Structure formats: structure tokens, C-alpha cells
């Protein structure tokens, strides 16, 4: 009997010990059968299901979107596909006005819905191509645009092709496509494209002239396109050093569309160049609130730092670091490299961007972040590519100067620094400080 008691005691001690070990090891929850989540699944909602969810909002465009949603649900055949395409473009417009890229997702659902109902529908493919471009899927957008261009005559197809090629760094081909667009339909969008391409090729005067023509084509009846053209013109005027003119043009844009973010950004940067920091902050704060894009946030953060509000600036910069990689990896890479923070990640982000687009600004981002990592060979090679188009941009010249100086090419460095100084007013305050340091080296 004593032996039996001993064994029982040992069994109790053993079990208690096992339970204690389990508890200490924090083993995963036990598989309680009744509490396991169900594996039963509903079918995934299709594009039409997603588009049937009533859109909210009170603006005329929101009302228009809801009307189109109803039209889609009550229609069939050609009427349905037409309504769906219009709904898709309405979402694109909404994305553009609100800077909410989620509306591109909805536009894509509209394009997919049309293509399900009518495969090879050219209008739906154009819409899908536009969404692909907006989502930085430029190579896919180019393929789609080329197939559209070869199958019909439509200026928007050439516009899509031109835009995709521009991002892919094939400027000559982009110019050709843009010229075809302008030949088919001289219009505000085609003029703005030509202006941008001219600027990319270093012809700032030509860009300004054409942007002015585009701005003259705008009308207050279609206020937003006119405001966009004015903002683009203000940007070129700012580049050219006519800061007062750029503020006036930005104000004209703001008169058309109050709190228009692109105009506020240019206005804020121009005021910053004039050292009117408080006024600049007012514009930049509203711009950054309206548009969460990283270049808006960075500009505001730099302005706050100049104003001695480092804490507020740090909050914005931390948010940029937190979300920037998924929102705009390239700008984040340039920002991090400029600040000398997380340099290996900056280079990684910039290099990853090259798989998406190969334009001058991507090569610049790689060169700049490579320099931050001390990789002079990569910096030099990519800077050469960045400068190959002849783009006259202060940031490009600043980076080129820093690379040349670090590379021991003092004369070349001084030349780039001098070119950067010609556009110094377009640099952010932090970058201006950097330029001063380089110039003294």
C-alpha cells in the first residue's frame, strides 16, 4: 500500500511538473475544437459586387458616381459597359481630386467588369492602362497602350503610351507618342505633356511657353483642369527664377479651385524661397493636409525646421519613414539619403524602384543613396544616366556636385554646384544648406 501511495504521489508530481513547464513555455492555445474558427468560406466578391457598394460623399462628382452606379445596376449590354467605363473614369477623377489612390482600385474594378462583359473593349483597356500607369505598373501600361495605338486612332491612347514611356526613361519615344497625341488633338493635356517633356530635356523656356498656352486654354467652367495648367505654369516660372510671377499664377489657380494642393505647394515653395516662412507654412500645411504625398510632407517638414519647430517636423518625418516605403519608395530613398539616415534601406528602395521605372529621377535616387552608402562607383554610373537627358534641376545638380566632389573631381563638382546655385531657390532649405557645404569643399 505504501508503494502504491508513493507511485500515486510521483504521478501527481509528474503531471504538475508537466503543467508547470507548459505554462512556463507559454505554449500556443490548446486546440479547443468548438472554438476553432470556421473554415467555411464565401465566394470572393467580384468587380461588379464591389462597384455596387454605394459611394458616399456630397460633391457633384460623388453624386455623379452614385448616379452611374445606379445606371450600371439597371443596365445591360452596351449601355452597361458604357456606364461602367464612365464610372471608372469618374473614380479616376475622384482619385485625382482627393489624392486617394484607393479610387484607382475601384476604377480598375470598373475596367475589369467591362472586359468580363466585352473582352477587348478598347475603352475599358484604356481605362485599365491608365490605372496601371497610376499604380506605377508602367511596363504593363506600355504593352496595353501599344496594342491600343495599333488598333485604333485615339489621342488618349497615345497619351497613355507617352506617359508610360516617359516613366520608363525612353524620352525620345515618349516625345514621338506625345507629338501624335497633339497632332490628333491639340488640347490642354497634350500641351502640358509637351511642356513636361521639354523641361525634362532641359528646355525650360520652351516648357514655360507651352505651359502658358495650355493655361490660356483653360476655362473657369472646367475649373480643375485650368487650375492644374496654372499650377504647372507656376512651377516652370518658379524654376526660371520668376518667383513673384509663380506666386501670381499659383494664386490664379487657387482662385479657380480654393485650396488646390499643387498650387499651394508651388506657392509655399516660392514663399519659402523668399524667406517668407510664416506665409509659406500656411500654404504648405494646407497642401500637405490635402495631399499626403511624400514630397508635400517633406517640404512642410523642412519649412517647419527652418521655423524652429523641429518637434513638429520630426512627427511628419517619422510618419514619412513609417509609411513612405509603400507610398513613394523613391522619394523616401532620396529623403533618407539627404538626411543620412537608414542609408542601406534608402539604396535598397531606390534600386527596387529601377525595376518599376527607369527615368532620370530614379537614376538620381540610386546615385544619391549610393553616395550616402559610400558606393562611389554606383553613384557615378547612375548620376551619369540621370544627367543624360539634360534635365535642368537643382536637386540633380546638387547630387551631381556632391558625387563629383567626393570622387575627387573638384572642377566638375564646382561646375555642378554652380548649376545648382542657378536654381538654388527651388531647393528645400535643408538642401540649400547642403549645397553651401559642398561649395566650400
Amino acid at each position, binding site marked *: 500500500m505504501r508503494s502504491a501511495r508513493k507511485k500515486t504521489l510521483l504521478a501527481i508530481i509528474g503531471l504538475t511538473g508537466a503543467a508547470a513547464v507548459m505554462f512556463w513555455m507559454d505554449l500556443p492555445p490548446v486546440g*479547443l475544437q468548438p472554438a476553432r*474558427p470556421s473554415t467555411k468560406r464565401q465566394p470572393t466578391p467580384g468587380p461588379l459586387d464591389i462597384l455596387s*457598394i454605394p459611394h458616399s460623399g456630397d460633391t457633384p462628382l460623388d453624386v455623379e458616381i452614385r*448616379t452611374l452606379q445606379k445606371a450600371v445596376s439597371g443596365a445591360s449590354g452596351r449601355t452597361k459597359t458604357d456606364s461602367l467605363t464612365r464610372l471608372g473614369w469618374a473614380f479616376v*477623377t475622384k482619385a485625382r481630386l482627393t489624392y486617394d489612390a*484607393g479610387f484607382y482600385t475601384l476604377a480598375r474594378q470598373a475596367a475589369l467588369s467591362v472586359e468580363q462583359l466585352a473582352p477587348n473593349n478598347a475603352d475599358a483597356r484604356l481605362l485599365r492602362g491608365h490605372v496601371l500607369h497610376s499604380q506605377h505598373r508602367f511596363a504593363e501600361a506600355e504593352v496595353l497602350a501599344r496594342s491600343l495605338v495599333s488598333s485604333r486612332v485615339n489621342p488618349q491612347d497615345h497619351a497613355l503610351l507617352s506617359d508610360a514611356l516617359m516613366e520608363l526613361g525612353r524620352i525620345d519615344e515618349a516625345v514621338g507618342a506625345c507629338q501624335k497625341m497633339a497632332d490628333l488633338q491639340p488640347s490642354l493635356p497634350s500641351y502640358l505633356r509637351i511642356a513636361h517633356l521639354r523641361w525634362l530635356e532641359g528646355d525650360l523656356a520652351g516648357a514655360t511657353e507651352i505651359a502658358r498656352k495650355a493655361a490660356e486654354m483653360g476655362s473657369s467652367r*472646367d475649373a480643375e483642369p485650368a487650375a492644374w495648367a496654372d499650377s*504647372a505654369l507656376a512651377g516652370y516660372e518658379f524654376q526660371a527664377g520668376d518667383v513673384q510671377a509663380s506666386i501670381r499664377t499659383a494664386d490664379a489657380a487657387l482662385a479657380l479651385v480654393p485650396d488646390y494642393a499643387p498650387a499651394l505647394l508651388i506657392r509655399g515653395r516660392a514663399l519659402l524661397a523668399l524667406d517668407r516662412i510664416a506665409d509659406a507654412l500656411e500654404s504648405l500645411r494646407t497642401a500637405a493636409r490635402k495631399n499626403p504625398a511624400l514630397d508635400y510632407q517633406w517640404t512642410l517638414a523642412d519649412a517647419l525646421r527652418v521655423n524652429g519647430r523641429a518637434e513638429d517636423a520630426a512627427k511628419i518625418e517619422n510618419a514619412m519613414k513609417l509609411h513612405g516605403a509603400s507610398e513613394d519608395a523613391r522619394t523616401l530613398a532620396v529623403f533618407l539619403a539627404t538626411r543620412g539616415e537608414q542609408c542601406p534601406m534608402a539604396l535598397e528602395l531606390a534600386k527596387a524602384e529601377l525595376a518599376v521605372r527607369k527615368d532620370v529621377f530614379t537614376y538620381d535616387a540610386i546615385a544619391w543613396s549610393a553616395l550616402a552608402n559610400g558606393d562611389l562607383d554606383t553613384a557615378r554610373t547612375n548620376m551619369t544616366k540621370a544627367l543624360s537627358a539634360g534635365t535642368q534641376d537643382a536637386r540633380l545638380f546638387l547630387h551631381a556636385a556632391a558625387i563629383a566632389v567626393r570622387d575627387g573631381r573638384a572642377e566638375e563638382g564646382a561646375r555642378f554646384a554652380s548649376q545648382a546655385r542657378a536654381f538654388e531657390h527651388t531647393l528645400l532649405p535643408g538642401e540649400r544648406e547642403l549645397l553651401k557645404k559642398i561649395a566650400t569643399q
Partner: protein
Amino acid sequence: MLRPPPSTLTWCRLLLAAFLALGSRALAHNPGLSSANLVVQEQAIDALLVFNAKEIEALVARNPAGKGTLESLARHALALTMDGQPLIPEAVEARPDQADNVEFHLRFPRAPGAQLGITATLLDDLPSGHRQILEVHDAGDALLARDLLSHERTGATITLTAPPQARHTFVDFLKLGIEHILTGYDHLLFLCGLLLVCDRFGTAVKIVSCFTVAHSITLAAATFDLITLSPRIVEPAIAASIIYVGIENLLRRGEMRWRGLLAFVFGLVHGLGFAGALREVGIGAGGRGVAVPLAAFNLGVETGQLAIAAVLLPVIWRLRRYPAFPRLGVPACSLMIALAGAIWFLQRTVLAS
């Protein structure tokens, strides 16, 4: 009445505005689209959330909290309330699917109420512009609601047209108690182990009473939130009690002196297990109207127990007339009971997924 589609002028304006964006550098990114599918069942709400694996990887990389981060993300991916009272997920799983997605499976207990509040809590951490399609179905697959959630609107409230049908009345909870003991094989086996060596009616009454009193105490205490013990402790402990009673039957060969105490001690553990069944239907832990359901449920458990004892004891006593039964039958049955307990123990500890 439907309004006519936009005029040609409007249509041109849309296209013009849309294509203006192309005059500059592309500004957008792909913010992603995820889905949340909820099935409102009689006793629970099952949720299946599907995200692109890259989005989840980015979130995990941003919060490298180490082990369990993915499950932690899953646990906090969705917040539910019923009539304003938060529901706590009782089971969570996170796993990749075969289409480069990550699936979060959550089960919430369904509390009584009609206003189901849903908040996609992960949206704040995902890129701005991310959208989540929310669908709510009932147990019969009927679509109750479909919505599109975003940063600006991370939640929705659904009015459940049919209130919870089950477990409302005294009889419902009585039935639930009976059902729980009759289908709770671990409780049944423990009871069998206790009764297997009983050769007298009085002893059987004493053991069953001790077990009943003990589990009633802990069932009430747990339901009123006086004791909170994780299922990861309670469930293995129940399995351990089965092993113990099997081994004791083998070693002590009918020694009944400590059986009452044994039944009482382990009854305390089993009571905590019964409380889990009540929680599944929203009684206790934030649920309402505890006393009547608790009494009815407990009565149901006792009724079930007595029914089992009433069937089992005559069979055991009949078998005891054969000398081989106490010598061979009882040890064989006890060994099987101990083995079953050991399997459960392993399933609920090291083999638990």
C-alpha cells in the same frame, strides 16, 4: 427614378480631368485591396480576413515584436461589438494561402444583441488608399451587408434582423447543459473512471455529489468572472485528471477512501471547462443575464450526469458479479481511460496548433 447618365459634356470633362494627371509624374501607388468576410452564426461570429502577403510582411517588418507577431496582427485586425459591448476573439489563426495572400481566421462568441459593430482596425496601419471589402453573411449564406471600408471610414454597424435564436430560455440552457455533458467525452470519461471502481450505491452518490458540488462552485465563479483561467491551462488539466483517475484505479485497486476528495478536487477543474461552454453563447465575460442561464445550465449538466450514472452503474454492478471483471476488466478499462487522457493531454499541449 434613375437619373440619366452624364451628358457628353460631363463625360468629356471626366476624361479631360483624368488625363491631366498624365501630364506630370505619376503620383499614385497601389494601396491594396483586402477583404473581410463575416458569418454570423447562432453561437459565434466567424471572420475570414484576406490580405496581400506583401502588405502583411511590411506590417510585421515595421513591428518586429518577434514570436507571435502575425497572430497578434490577426487578433487585432478586426474589432467587433454587440450593442456596444466588445466581443473578444476566442480563437485566432493566421496562415498563408496559395495565392500569395495571408488569411486571418477569427472566431468571436456571439453575445445577445442586434447591433453588430465592425471596425477594420488594421486599416490605420496599411497604406492610405487601402480598401477593404466587408461582407456579412448569416448562417444560411444570405448576404446581410456589403460595404467598402477605407482610412476615412474604418467601420460599419450592421443591424442583425434576426436576434440570436438559441439559448434564450431556461429550457434552452438546460438542454445546453445536458448536451454539453453528453457530448463532452473528456468529462464523461472522467466520470466513468470514478464510477468504474464503485461497488456500492452510497459510494457512487458520494462521488457524484462531490464532483457536482465542486464543478458547480468553479462554474459559478468563472461565469461571474471571479476566476479567470486560460483554456490552455484548464483543458490540459482536465486531460491530466483523466490520466490520474485511470492510473489511480490501476494502482489502488478499489481503495475508495480518498475518492470523494479526488472527485471534488478535479471537479473544480472540470467546472472551469463547463464555463467555457457558457461563454461560447455569450453568458459571462461581458454577457448579460447570468444567474438563470447558469442555474439552468448547471441543472442540465447534473441531469446529464445522473442519466449517465443511472445507465453506467447497473452495468458496472452487473459485471462485478463476475470475478474476472475487478481483476482484469477494471484494470483494462482504467488503462484505456488513462491512455485516452494522455492523448488528450498531448493534443492540448505539445500537439496544439
